[in-house]
């Protein structure tokens, strides 16, 4: 089927982007995936839901991003004893880990050969599935860790280096298994899931009006993106019209978040190349930004600034002045640091050619966000398919073709400067008016999709409402799901001591993907 036929047969879902909704059977599930692959769609997320109490079966969802629309495909599984569906990993390799996660949480399986647990690390029994409705979230189980078999590489002089989950620095936990010969990396296999907190289960106990707070805390560096995605999904379900001023302020907050994270990453990138000067300079700039955040938005990391119906605080004239003064100080500093990076032979030698992700690999594996843009793929939800208020701001997308650490650093520099331009434009053109609208209680059993381009890439919330302002199911998806597997490819052929630098240039979220 062509996209047009598919879209013609589909219903419309509430969402901030044009969202279509297609119910399929077992064969169509696989066929749609094949069609989407042919259309070069991107798999945004794959998740499941236990609807046995309501409809007598499970549901599995896949969200695809097409050039102009989002397509959500739903397959209803009537088999409640051994529910299974067809793996779409052959069309979208990124689905493999999501399917393993769905199995860990809901017990819905595929025929895919990899049956190792992804999120389940022995924290609950193999026959228990925490996201099923009959599971009690307060139930405690003794940890029964089982061995996890990594794919082994054999050959003369090949050996393994096991790193993590506890690292020498204060960073999030994840395990990396390198197969190396000498210093050269032959294969890297990641094992994540150490920070699985059961956020999806916790959403079921959360009221709709409080959900944005939980969403913001899934991955603290993307608080604005997640809470905005949540709020916009709830607003689309209830038909709330967010005041224009509030939308613009949300965009301002999102760009502040983008600048903060990029500044932090750029400093850390230099530091990982042994250029400690960059860390102190960028840390200072980031700290200045966080302090301005505290005055202008009431929170350093912008927690709970975006609320359903609008934003928590209006921007005062003093705050506007503080932001403008800060931008005037920040811009020359960033430009100066950019030229220092560019002219520093040592830094450039480490950055160039390191961790190259070819465009073909990135396309085949479904890269998204910043990582995809560094490998020459033009994708940015702020520009297309564009949603409010970015239609009035016309952001310029940064694209690099090299796909190496230098490209990912360059994207960050360009995006910081572009975000500064957007922030100034917002402050110049923002309309006066209310910053909050009342959100009515949503009808039950409604699904809404919120998609926001966070600093890593598109952040997605799929919200399904329950009775009495409850949340029936809320699936939060971090773009790190897509880009973690790409890191395994970017490191191939590089040397072990370059891994931290390459990893930092991706800077993916552990907490966000573990859920």
């Amino acid at each position, binding site marked *: 089927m062509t996209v047009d036929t598919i879209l013609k047969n589909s219903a419309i879902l509430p969402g901030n982007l044009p969202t279509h909704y297609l119910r399929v059977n077992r064969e169509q599930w696989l066929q749609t995936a094949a069609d989407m692959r042919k259309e070069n769609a991107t798999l945004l997320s794959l998740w499941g839901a236990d609807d046995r109490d309501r409809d007598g079966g499970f549901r599995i969802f896949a969200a695809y991003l097409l050039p102009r629309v989002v397509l959500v495909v739903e397959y209803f599984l009537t088999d409640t004893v051994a529910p299974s569906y067809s793996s779409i990993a052959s069309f979208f390799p990124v689905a493999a880990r999501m399917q393993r996660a769905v199995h860990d949480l809901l017990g819905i399986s595929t025929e895919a050969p990899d049956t190792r647990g992804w999120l389940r690390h022995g924290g609950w029994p193999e026959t228990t599935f925490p996201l099923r409705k009959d599971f009690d979230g307060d139930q405690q189980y003794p940890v029964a860790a089982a061995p996890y078999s990594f794919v082994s590489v054999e050959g003369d002089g090949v050996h393994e280096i096991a790193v993590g989950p506890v690292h*020498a620095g204060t960073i999030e936990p994840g395990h990396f298994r390198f197969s190396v010969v000498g210093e050269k990396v032959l294969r890297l296999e990641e094992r994540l899931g150490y920070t699985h907190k059961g956020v999806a289960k916790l959403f079921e106990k959360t009221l709709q009006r409080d959900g944005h707070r939980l969403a913001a805390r899934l991955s603290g560096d993307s608080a604005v993106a997640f809470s905005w995605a949540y709020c916009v999904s709830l607003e689309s379900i209830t038909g709330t019209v967010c005041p224009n001023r509030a939308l613009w302020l949300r965009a301002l907050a999102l760009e502040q978040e983008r600048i903060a994270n990029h500044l932090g990453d750029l400093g850390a990138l230099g530091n990982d190349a042994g250029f400690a000067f960059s860390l102190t300079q960028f840390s200072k700039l980031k700290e200045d930004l966080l302090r301005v955040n505290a005055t202008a938005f009431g929170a350093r990391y912008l927690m709970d600034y975006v609320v359903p119906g609008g934003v928590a605080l209006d921007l005062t004239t003093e705050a506007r002045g503080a932001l403008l003064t800060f931008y005037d100080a920040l811009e020359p500093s960033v430009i100066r640091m950019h030229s220092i990076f560019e002219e*520093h032979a040592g830094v450039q030698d480490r950055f160039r050619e390191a961790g190259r992700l070819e465009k073909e690999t990135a396309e085949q594996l479904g890269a998204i966000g910043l990582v995809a843009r560094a490998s020459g793929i033009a994708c940015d939800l702020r520009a297309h398919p564009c949603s409010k208020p970015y239609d009035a701001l016309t952001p310029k997308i940064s694209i690099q073709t090299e796909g190496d650490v230098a490209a990912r650093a360059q994207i960050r520099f360009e995006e910081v400067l572009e975000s500064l331009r957007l922030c100034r434009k917002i402050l110049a053109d923002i309309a006066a008016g209310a910053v909050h609208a009342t959100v009515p209680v949503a009808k039950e059993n409604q699904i809404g999709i919120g998609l926001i381009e966070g600093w890593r890439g598109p952040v997605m919330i799929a919200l399904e409402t329950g009775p009495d302002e409850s949340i029936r199911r809320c699936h939060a998806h971090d773009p790190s799901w897509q880009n973690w597997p790409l890191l395994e490819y970017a490191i191939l052929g590089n040397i072990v001591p370059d891994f931290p630098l390459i990893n930092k240039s991706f800077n993916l979220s552990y907490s966000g993907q573990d859920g």
Partner: protein
Amino acid sequence: MKTLTFVRQFGEVLLAIAIAPLFAGWIAQCRAWLQNRSAPPLVQPYRMLRKLFQKDVALAADASRLFRATPYVLFGTMVLAAAIIPSIATDLPFAQAADAIALIGLFATARVFLSLAAMDIGTAFGSMGARRDMMIGFLAEPALLMVLFNAFLFSGSTALPGVVEASATHGSFIDPSLIFAAIAFLMVLLAENARIPIDNPATHLELTMIHEAMVLEYSARHLALVEWSSDLKLLNYACIGFALFLPWGIATHGADGTAALALAAVALLAKLVVAGGIFALIESLSAKLRIFRAPEYLATAFLLAVLGLLVHLLLGA
């Protein structure tokens, strides 16, 4: 007189042991200033040592006697090296027993023990650090030898006190060959002491570590001794550099009364202050090299030292 010589000898060793952490603290302070950070206090390394000595040792289950003995071996070799190097006076009984080539042997002994101890535990990081350190070592040692040969050619002696005495008596030693040798020596010093651009002493990234990877499993008093030996090693290298290239102020044989010794001590401190600043500047300005650039870097050092030798031979001493 004999007793006085030994008092001088032990005084010099004790001074080296005492100020080694201070030198490391001074470099850290300069580096912090150059990078726009507020600096840790100068005595921070001493506080760290005190803290570590007060802690209980956590030992890996597979650690053998070698692992436990290595910190003492390291510290012992570095103290011995400090006894050989004429940092304040040249009339040192120990220095007569061992020349500069034996000194390189001492450093090599320390390296072998540390590498063995790192592999003893059987962790991936220990072996990784050990093999990287061995790679750096076998490239750095020839370069260092070449630097020393430069000095030996000048003085006609393979003992460091002899080199200092010679330059004190001959006077004019601003010589092109020594400039080549000095640059080569500085490069070797940075590589051998696990500093940028070869290694990063401040890193927390276990996969990039060289020296730090080898000592990851050490704790408490063992770690204190390892850290202290590292500080001593750096000080020793700096003092070798002073003896070879900047011997001003060192009390020579026969002119080493109390006043001369005091002057020598002041000169040493002044040189350390300047050297620390230079190290911090180099570290702040450069990034860490990709590890496979290290051979090029050390080959350059070797080449410079050889060039120094050639210049000396061709210009005709």
